[in-house]
């Protein structure tokens, strides 16, 4: 890592030499008046209108336009997006003729510069990373809209983006690209967002025209005879920008020693396969002797999905690497057919590391279905083999192998796989598991829709396909509900109580509910945001919005707002009944404790109001609560959903139950333990977590955006528009399975506890002991419970070892006299 001021000095010196070498090239750097300027470049701000005296400047009133365009300069090295890569002096800022993605007038704006008579060459750099409100998920229209750049009236370049589907495919390709050790952050996250165009023109002047949404970052001009110099100057400028970005960050590595015997064997074979149970395998993993040749195993009850994970370390570059897994075979000849087996590879992405300074770590964060590819030497890869055990599988060990081949390997390598099929079925969950799901319209598609004028019907179709794909993947992960709300379809309420609806948004919401039912059936849908921004918006019910605490404190809820709120709820649930939707749980407010005691008071007032309306109209309410000041709202809620910052304690859980509210949890950790054994102890009716997809921060949306950002809550899609599998989702899936194992054990104990058969009684006693051991070990209280908190979360490895004990106990209860081989 290099300090930015040092970096800039280095850049200045480097570019100074370049200036000397290419003095005939005029260089203009467009942007703000106070941002860094590279030596030898001329600053052009938005205020420099063309004048004969200066011989350069903007033309902002084209023929036919009533008012001149207003120009803006923007520096994108802003502070609010901490994970955003800081850019060098040329790319960091630009001038543009509009803002806030809907504020771009039609037409072209022009930069004119007098160059004298003769033939010339020019080069422009154009790029913009964000829109005005960078913490929102705005993407600039330059990313979406086709446009033409003209030079002296002639077309110099046409930027075409293709249709919305092509764009989604393109984004999938970015997500499929690995970031390997030594790769450039600039190349991955910055360069592709900047367009460069080199063009030829004749003097005496250059008129560079482009649509108002096109940013202008840099312009270079040189006599035609100096083509080589101009191109070199452009290349030098981009190289300096690359140096600036890449020098900011240092990779922090979790290097492992490579035992000599393993290394030698790997060099002879070209690569090595290894198994490391319950551990994530990063790019610097190096197998120990014990890990090589070790079978990769998993135990799975019939009808469930297991995952076998192994590492693969090429010691030379391998092209066209193929990984195949055939059927898994039982000694009896029965098989788990190959169609039930799929191979996935975790993609490597850079993520900011928690260190002093600017560091990143390369992590295998999410997996896509494997397709043949080149694997680079020295980079360990993390493979997952998912196995769906059929409902009719007989119990016992099923063996198979993953065969890895490449033209660069002397012979294929084989990893032994063993699935122990357990002779019982897991009970279904007796509670709801769900994750927050961002509206695809608001997160993935809204800007495209607005900027590309995608037809409404196509947008509906796209939203639905994304919804269905995500819901199915959620179900695969064990979730049986999803938490999401509508995108503000109510635009107002008339004086006579009629609800005014935005037809397009309402249609999208109806589609979503239908898609939800297709995948999750009639399970209750906790409609997150519905009550504080989805339906009850400030547009329709002024002062009612969840965040309008100041206004509420001064004026309270107006009679009109309350009336409108009631009217909206009545109308909405009438629609729900008419359309026979699954139960929509009305989420009245979100973490009002974040606004302190005032937020707590507003939360209580809202809860009381909604209680009356809910009782009259007939729906259930819920709220997520992020602090003690929201505890008074509990008696007015049907479902109380503590978040991590509410003191979760035995006393508060008991209070929720005494108050007649259901206990759910939200955001108490995206890990296996909090989805499994913690729930076995606390017994809530629901467990929700943010977020399956639709991360709200712009730079976290796609792995290829200009950041070393946090994509842990982003749903990644491949170029075939299939959802990927994130590590933390897999952890939660395992947690849900733990919970189901525990529930199965609990039921069998209850069913067998009256048996008089000695073997059954013995099995019951053993199982009870195990159950009590687990329950006694779970610590209910979180760190906000006013105690000297150290830690309470069990590792995945501990959870797995307990699961195996539960599996043994379950088999014992099912067949107490047996000493079968599966035990």
């Amino acid at each position, binding site marked *: 890592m290099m300090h930015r001021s040092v970096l800039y000095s280095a850049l200045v010196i480097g570019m100074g030499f370049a200036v000397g070498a290419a003095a005939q090239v005029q260089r203009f750097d467009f942007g703000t008046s106070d941002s860094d300027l590279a030596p030898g470049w001329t600053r052009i701000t938005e205020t420099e209108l063309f004048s004969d005296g200066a011989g350069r400047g903007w033309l902002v009133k084209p023929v036919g336009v009533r008012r001149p365009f207003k120009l803006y300069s923007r520096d994108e090295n802003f502070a609010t997006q901490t994970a955003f890569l800081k850019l060098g002096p040329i790319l960091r800022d630009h001038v543009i003729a509009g803002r806030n993605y809907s504020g771009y007038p039609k037409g072209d704006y022009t930069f004119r510069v007098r160059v004298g008579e003769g033939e010339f060459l020019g080069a422009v750099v154009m790029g913009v990373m964000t829109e005005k409100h960078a913490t929102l998920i705005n993407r600039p229209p330059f990313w979406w809209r086709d446009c033409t750049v003209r030079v002296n009236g002639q077309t110099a370049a046409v930027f075409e983006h293709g249709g919305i589907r092509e764009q989604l495919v393109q984004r999938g390709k970015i997500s499929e690209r690995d970031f390997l050790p030594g790769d450039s952050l600039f190349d991955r996250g910055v360069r592709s967002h900047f367009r460069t165009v080199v063009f030829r023109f004749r003097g005496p002047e250059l008129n560079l025209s482009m649509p108002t949404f096109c940013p202008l970052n840099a312009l270079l001009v040189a006599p035609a005879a100096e083509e080589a110099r101009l191109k070199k100057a452009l290349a030098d400028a981009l190289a300096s920008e690359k140096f600036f970005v890449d020098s900011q960050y240092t990779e922090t590595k979790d290097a492992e020693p490579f035992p000599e015997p393993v290394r030698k064997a790997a060099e002879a074979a070209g690569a090595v396969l290894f198994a490391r149970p319950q551990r994530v395998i990063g790019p610097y993993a190096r197998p120990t002797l014990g890990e090589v040749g070790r079978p990769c195993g998993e135990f799975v009850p019939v009808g469930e999905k297991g995952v076998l994970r192994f590492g693969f370390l090429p010691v030379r570059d391998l092209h066209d690497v193929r990984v195949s897994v055939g059927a898994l075979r039982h000694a009896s000849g029965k098989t788990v057919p190959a169609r039930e087996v799929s191979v996935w590879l975790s993609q490597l992405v850079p993520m900011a590391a928690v260190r*002093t300074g*600017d560091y990143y770590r390369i992590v295998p964060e999410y997996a896509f279905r494997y397709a043949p590819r080149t694997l680079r030497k020295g980079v360990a890869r993390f493979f997952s083999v998912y196995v769906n055990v059929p409902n009719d599988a007989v119990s016992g060990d099923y063996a198979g192998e993953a065969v890895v081949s490449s033209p660069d390997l002397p012979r294929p390598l084989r990893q032994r796989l063993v699935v122990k099929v357990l002779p019982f079925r897991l009970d279904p969950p007796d509670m709801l598991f769900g994750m927050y799901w961002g509206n695809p319209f608001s997160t993935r598609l809204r800007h495209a829709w607005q900027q590309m004028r995608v037809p409404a019907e196509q947008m509906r179709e796209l939203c639905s396909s994304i919804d269905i794909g995500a819901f199915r993947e959620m179900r695969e992960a064990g979730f049986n509900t999803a938490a999401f709300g509508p995108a503000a379809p109510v635009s107002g309420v008339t004086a006579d109580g009629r609800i005014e609806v935005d037809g397009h948004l309402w249609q999208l919401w109806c589609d979503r509910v239908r898609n939800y039912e297709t995948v999750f059936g009639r399970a209750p849908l906790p409609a997150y945001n519905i009550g504080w921004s989805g339906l009850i918006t400030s547009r329709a019910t002024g002062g009612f919005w969840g965040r309008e605490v100041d206004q509420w404190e001064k004026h309270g809820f107006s009679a009109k707002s309350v009336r409108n709120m009631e009217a909206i709820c009545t109308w909405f649930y009438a629609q729900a009944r008419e359309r026979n939707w699954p139960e929509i749980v009305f989420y009245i407010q979100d973490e009002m*404790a974040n606004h302190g005691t005032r937020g707590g008071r507003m939360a209580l007032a809202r809860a009381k109001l909604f209680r009356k309306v809910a009782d009259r109209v007939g729906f259930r309410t819920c709220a997520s609560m992020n602090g*003690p000041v929201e505890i008074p709202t509990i008696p007015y809620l049907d479902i109380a959903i503590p978040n991590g910052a509410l003191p979760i304690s035995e006393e508060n859980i008991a209070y929720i139950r005494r108050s007649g509210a259901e206990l759910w949890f939200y955001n108490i950790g995206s890990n296996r333990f909090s989805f499994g054994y913690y729930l076995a102890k606390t017994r809530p009716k629901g467990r929700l977590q943010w977020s399956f997809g639709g991360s709200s921060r712009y730079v976290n949306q796609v792995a290829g955006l200009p950041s070393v950002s946090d994509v842990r809550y982003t749903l990644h899609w491949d170029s075939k528009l299939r959802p990927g599998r994130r590590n933390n989702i897999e952890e939660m899936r395992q947690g849900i399975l733990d919970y189901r194992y525990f529930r199965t054990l609990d039921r069998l104990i209850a069913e067998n506890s009256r048996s008089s058969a000695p073997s059954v009684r013995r099995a019951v006693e053993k199982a009870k002991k195990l159950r009590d051991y687990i329950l006694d070990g779970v610590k209910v209280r979180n760190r906000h419970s*006013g105690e000297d*908190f*150290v*830690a309470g979360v069990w590792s995945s490895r*501990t959870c797995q070892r307990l699961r195996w004990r539960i599996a043994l106990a379950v088999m014992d209860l099912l067949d107490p006299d047996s000493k079968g081989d599966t035990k």
Partner: protein
Amino acid sequence: MGQFSALRFHPVFVLLARLSAAVVVLNGTAAERFSMQLTVDTGFFERRDALVAARLDFRRPVDISTAVLRDPANSAIPFWFEPVAPFRGRLYWILAGETDSLEKVPFSLVVQTGRWPGKPTGTRAIAKIVRRRRNLLPNGGFETPDLESKQTTTWKGARGAAHWVLHDFAWSYRKLPDIAALCRPVTVEAFEGKWALMFRSDVREDAPKARTGIPVVVAPYVNGPVVPMAPGRRYAFSYWVKFTDVIRDGYVSASVNFLDANKKRLFPRKYAINRMQAAYGTARNLRDDYLGKWVCVSVVKEALPEVRFGQVVIGGSFGGTCFLDGFRLREVGTGPPATVSVGPLQPVE
């Protein structure tokens, strides 16, 4: 048997037995050897070089300097022993390397009868680890006075606390008249021991930074001791607070600022990671939960790679009075300590 058993536990008998045993030992009678099985249960957490502790009751005088602690491979390993009462004490040792969760690891301790040590004994390196696990902060309860307490412009107290530098208010408020803000070690309240730190802030409309109608909280601040910390290790920082009056909502906040090898503060890009902050917000909690009650505030964090020292600082933004006590900074594992079950003392042939 019953009669003997009752007599055996009678306090007078126990005392006599112990005295006579001591006399025998002092007279040079041949020492007897005993062994005891110590089984470490890792519980629900994986352990790495974990410190484990066992309470031992030998019921007879033993010479700890003759004791040999053996691991499952029968190798002698270092330990630290602290007597807490005659023939009783705590034994500490390291569960070396990585040990899985849900494991029971057997150790054995062989010891001879002999002179009861009366003072801690064993390997000092382990003693050092024990201290790190207890409390790195000296005088975390303000029990030891600062004998050289000097009054300054911003502190007017008579009795300071050793290792803590107290300030009644920030220098910028020095010209305000009659500032009520102060911090003092006092005995009117204490969570543990006799002393606690009274922390009283003033709400002022005449402060330079006060905008029209928006008063400013003038609060004390405290710089605590600088203590060594190690990179990559997990620390728990905690303290107890009792609010007695709150006239304006805000926070009391204590942090351990991470310092580098030169005892300078670290300023990473994500600034919030450069300290362990444990704050209690009156606006985030119900008055019934904190007013007139001792509440524990704690945070657990792994020290950044560059951390070599830590310094406690205390500040506040609430208006009113609270008392602070029981500051602890200690190294912790990934979970609560492993438990040890102690077998009976058996004579060795």
